[in-house]
């Protein structure tokens, strides 16, 4: 279900509460108010005088209802649901208020609500995208409507009209009229919800799914029904809000219906994509930064290290800076300024490599004895001091804080600081993460002697990043998997015979599952569809074990597990559990790949 147009909806959502009523004191109460979980039913059930007087004025009933449900000890709570949903009354035990405060209506209501949540998953998708859903908006509108109706009535009774009140009245009328139409849709939903609730109540076995997922007492489950965070929380509050236990509610949608990109497609599409509309703005920004090259050069010459931060790739900028430095230093070889470029995003970069390059730049005939880096640095300094006219070395380091490079390690940072503190060596570096200052403590920082500059470039990182691999690694899909089917063959060659047989068995089973239309049992979590590039269908663990025993691959579950672990370590197999807890094993390969792997195994 695609989300609706964003811009307008978001506007509504932001503005509406502020216009209607003052915000409650506790920020956490807000989401309950415009909650995605509709529960029109609940609203109906709850008598209006439930809340504390102050709240009754400030917030509509629904929220009051919520608060009360969470406090199981509130006396009138058990009554209201039981009275109005007769079907549940029949099934549930008579109310026992003192036994842990579980009201009779409870076992059924939460499950019903939970079930409804499952059905409405697309709504939570809005939680992520920040767009309101019709249902939620309806609720908000309805409560607003009720208020505005009251306001209109009051107005008529009092008959007093002043200027700004007039305006208010106008708004109230607008709301009243606009929500007429949505009311209908909502009633339908309500009916649906009621039916479901009944269904759930009468057939307890069906609630298993909901319960399995939540697995918490009803009181708790109740509390976390607010996937959308309250707006305008300060960041730290938001952190605690979002990290409350059980507050993570995301939909079960997966990308399985989507063909993930592979490198070839990515690059061919990228080529056809045409120009970025911001291209010339980015260039302008770039040239603006380039205007401060002389300043940076001056800072470098005065013993400062320059650190460029900000969003966007600074690779091109750094390169231009290198050119500037090169040309301003005379650009000929007799001048003793050497510029050394270091690409921090290269995963294979070692600190030793930097040092040897520097020494080669100073004196190509000198062989820097390799040893521990600190000793190497000291040798390098000795070498430097042996020149009467000191050579100047400028290190230009791209992506100092790249998470992939070994440079990010604290030891390397202190070595770098040591290196850059030498008067003949200056360092200019770029950083990409916003939390780079945490890399250095105060003493490191003072020996780096950094001058920081905001260099937001908006240039894309396509050269530094292997976008496709990055994303797949992020998604945990064939992340560091041993490089396609060749990799698998390589891994298998190093494993014992039994392991090879087992893998063959799994591949065979998975292929069979493919043939069966991707059922394979893994279908519940949606991974069962044909997913080229994604996860294939799963094979049930227990069944696989039995087969393995039959074929004398292993004799105990222990041995079986050990074999599987090897596969897991090489990430050529993935496993997941479905909602009942059955474990499925699957292979992160496409069908064609699997076939060729099987062929190879058999040959």
């Amino acid at each position, binding site marked *: 279900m695609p989300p609706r147009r964003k811009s307008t909806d978001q506007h509504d959502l932001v503005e509406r509460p502020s216009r209607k009523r003052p915000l409650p004191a506790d920020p956490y109460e807000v989401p309950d108010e415009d909650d995605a979980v509709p529960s029109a039913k609940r609203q109906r059930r709850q008598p209006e005088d439930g809340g504390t007087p102050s709240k009754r004025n400030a917030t509509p009933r629904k929220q009051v209802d919520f608060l009360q449900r969470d406090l199981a000890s509130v006396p009138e709570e058990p009554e209201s649901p039981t009275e109005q949903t007769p079907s549940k009354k029949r099934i549930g035990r008579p109310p026992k208020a003192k036994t842990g405060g579980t009201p009779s209506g409870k076992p059924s209501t939460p499950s019903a609500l939970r079930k409804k949540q499952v059905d409405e998953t697309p709504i939570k998708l809005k*939680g992520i995208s920040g767009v309101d859903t019709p249902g939620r908006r309806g609720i908000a509108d309805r409560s607003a409507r009720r208020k505005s109706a009251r306001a209109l009535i009051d107005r008529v009774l009092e008959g007093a009209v002043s200027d700004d009140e007039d305006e208010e009245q106008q708004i109230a009328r607008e709301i009243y009229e606009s929500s007429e139409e949505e009311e209908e849709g909502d009633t339908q939903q309500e009916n649906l919800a009621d039916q479901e609730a009944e269904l759930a109540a009468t057939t307890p076995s069906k609630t298993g799914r909901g319960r399995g997922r939540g697995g918490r007492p009803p009181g708790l489950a109740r509390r976390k029904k607010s996937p959308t965070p309250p707006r305008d929380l300060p960041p730290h509050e938001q952190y605690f809000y979002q990290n409350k236990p059980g507050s993570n509610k995301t939909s079960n949608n997966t990308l399985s219906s989507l063909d993930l990109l592979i490198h070839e497609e990515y690059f061919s599409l990228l080529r056809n994509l045409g120009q970025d509309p911001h291209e010339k703005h980015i260039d302008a920004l770039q040239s603006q930064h380039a205007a401060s090259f002389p300043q940076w050069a001056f800072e470098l010459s005065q013993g400062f290290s320059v650190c460029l931060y900000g969003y966007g790739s600074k690779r091109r900028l750094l390169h231009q800076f290198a050119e500037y430095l090169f040309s301003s230093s005379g650009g000929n070889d007799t001048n003793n300024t050497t510029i050394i470029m270091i690409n921090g995003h290269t995963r294979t970069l070692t600190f030793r490599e930097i040092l040897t390059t520097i020494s080669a730049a100073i004196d190509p005939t000198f062989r820097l004895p390799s040893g521990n880096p600190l000793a190497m640095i000291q040798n390098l300094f000795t070498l430097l001091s042996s020149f009467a006219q000191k050579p100047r070395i400028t290190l230009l380091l791209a992506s100092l804080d790249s998470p992939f490079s070994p440079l990010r390690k604290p030891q390397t940072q202190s070595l770098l600081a040591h290196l850059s503190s030498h008067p003949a060596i200056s360092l200019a570096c770029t950083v990409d993460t*916003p939390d780079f200052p945490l890399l250095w403590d105060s003493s490191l920082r003072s020996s780096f002697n950094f001058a920081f500059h905001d260099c937001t470039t908006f240039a894309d990182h396509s050269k530094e990043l292997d976008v496709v691999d990055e994303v797949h690694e992020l998604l945990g899909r064939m992340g560091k998997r041993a490089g396609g089917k060749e990799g698998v063959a390589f891994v298998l060659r190093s494993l014992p015979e039994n392991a090879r047989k087992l893998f063959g068995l799994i591949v065979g089973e998975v292929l069979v599952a493919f043939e069966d239309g991707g059922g394979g049992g893994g279908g519940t979590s949606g991974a069962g569809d044909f997913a080229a590039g994604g996860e294939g269908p799963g094979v049930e663990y227990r069944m696989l074990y039995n087969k393995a025993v039959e074929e004398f691959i292993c004799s105990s579950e222990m041995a079986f597990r050990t074999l599987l672990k090897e596969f897991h370590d090489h990430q050529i197999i993935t496993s997941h559990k479905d909602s009942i807890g059955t474990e499925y094993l699957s292979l992160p390969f496409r069908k064609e790949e699997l076939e060729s792997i099987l062929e190879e195994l058999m040959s």
Partner: protein
Amino acid sequence: MAETHDENPTLSEEDDHRAVYIFNPRAGHHTSLPQEKTARPVKKRRVGSTRAWSASAADHAGVAPHAEEETETTTTAAAAFSQLFGGKESLEAAGLRRQVFDTAWPVLDGRIKNVLREANRTTLEDVSSFIRDAEGDATRGTRIPAGFIITGPNIASQDLLFEQLSEALGKATQARFVRLRAAGAPNLKAALKKVIRDATAQVSLDGGDGDEDTEVALGRDGRKYLDYDLEGLHAFFGVQQDSSRRVVVAFEDSEAFESSLLTDLLGLFHSWQGRIQFSVLFGIATSVELFQARLLKSTARQLFGAKFDVVQADLVLDNVFKSAIAGTQATLRLGPTLLRSLLDRQRDQVAGIRVFISSIKYAYMCHFYANPLSVLLADEKSLTRQLLQPEHIQAVRTLDSFKAHVEAAVDARQLNHAQLLVEDDGYLVRQMVEQRQKKQDYLMQLLRSLHLLTSMDLVPGRFTDLYVAALAGGLDLTPTIDGIKRLGADDVPALINRLLTAIRTGSPDLDLPGWEDEAEELISSLCEIRDEIEALAEQAQEKGQQALKSKFTAQSKVLRTTVIAQKVQLSQDTAKLTDEDKAFGKAIDALVDLLTHHIYSDPVDSLFLHEAWAYDAEAPYRDVFVPRPGTTFERALTRPHAYLGCECCSKTNGTLSATLPTTCVLYRLYLETGSLVNVADLWSAYYALVGEDSEDGGLGEREALVQFYHGLAELRLMGFVKSSKKKADHVAKVKWLL
């Protein structure tokens, strides 16, 4: 954003895949075979620079290279500062600015270094002599000499101290100095490795030949030792024929070491004490008692300790401040706003003295680099009339202080003066030249006043605060008047004597010479008052009066009693004052008048042309030293048009729109997620925004997916998300607070 069309051809794919390389656009692109990576520079260098460098290294006997260097610095100096006034500034003026900077800073730098060296000198001497003498001390027995250095909590300043210690001890005792930090030595093995490595590697520094230390692991007979075996170190000393065999191990942040590690290490050192002379130093931030409490008693018994105090960072800061900022040597005056924020940062963030010095330097750099009028600070020889362009004159006329000056002239009915200032360039230039003297006078007056004030010992508060306040709001005697008036008859002559010495000797800290010659009048008046008071005191004594009282002292005493008593007693006291007392009161009044007359200063921004020699911009300092990357990223990602200045995005006005860069869109969506992010939902939200169905997007699914991938990869690069195993196709949110 498809293929970045790089207009500079040198930036090629190839460069990105080489991890480290020497930048040389002229050399063209070599095939980047791994062997050639190191081979290439060899080729290049042989052709060109080896000649120059090795020649200069080997042959030049001092004179020639210096000459070369000098010519080089002057040429680079001229080119170094970019021309201001939109490029209209003459090359000479820009060069002169650089020259002024190049002469101004080193003077200061030298002074600061001196201050720092002096600050720790006594500690260093004490420690060295302790370590040296500990050997001969019979009471020591086999215990390890241990220096406990109370450094205080500022790690950043510790660094400097230990550096100096390592230098001083190396010189004084020929010991090998090893600095251990808890982070670098997490366990016994690592610590020992570091000790051995550092103790042996140091030789290569002065040994010159780099090959020597590769043999470290070898003993005399070619035996190999493990690199954490102290036996190896012992053997190394044997090879080196180092008879002293001293190793000083400094635990810089002793509190951060685990006590068990300390115990083990000290035990080992103790057992080796006969063969290798270990001494240890502990940097202690808290107190020796606390430190001892962490050690085992048996370990503590192995130590032969002495405690050393270090000059606290505050005091060092004060000294640096006096010499580098307030002192007469400082060419540039830092303004009160900047100083205030510098000092605050030192106090609040314990940033370390080095950062403070860097900040001062940066202020100098900024001033001379970016302010064309800084050329006026050049000495008179080099600052010729020809150098001043019409732009300079124009710039002076736009100054605030110029306006204020002219307005003041108009108010004072000096219309002619005002008119000439505005219209006649020659007249203005003459005024500007005159202003240099006025600036000197002002500074002298300021510093002398400050010096007198502080030498009176009556003002509470630190010199730094006083100085900053004086720059900001001027200075006068007010804060001390009460103090002076309350002084007794014995104290006043002492005070006057202090003032007289202050005038005679000046202040070496501030580099302020004595100004006896210029202040004859003041001196004689002071002497007169002193003599008078002394005479009065004698008279009073002869008369049998206990001590001289003035109306002020009486009042002060009364103030200490109750309020009701005050009224009564006050009248009584004045009634009781003798003639001598009255004379004494008058003398004090005269003294106050005199001092008020001599101790004063105006705020710095009241001077005409102060912009040329005072720098008070806080913003560059804050941007450069206290970056706020979070805000920067936040702004870039939420309001890209603030940087890009594009029309398409500025219209969005805080809402999502397809024209925003992909990463920005994803960041906005990201902000609204919980701690787990469903990528599938993120994708569908994104696609709904830019996809074919949307109003203004119209990207095909695959194209949109490419963009989406891109944005997601960038989010990951910036550390916003990380992969999560909790659910399929979910990623974890990592950042809440930017």
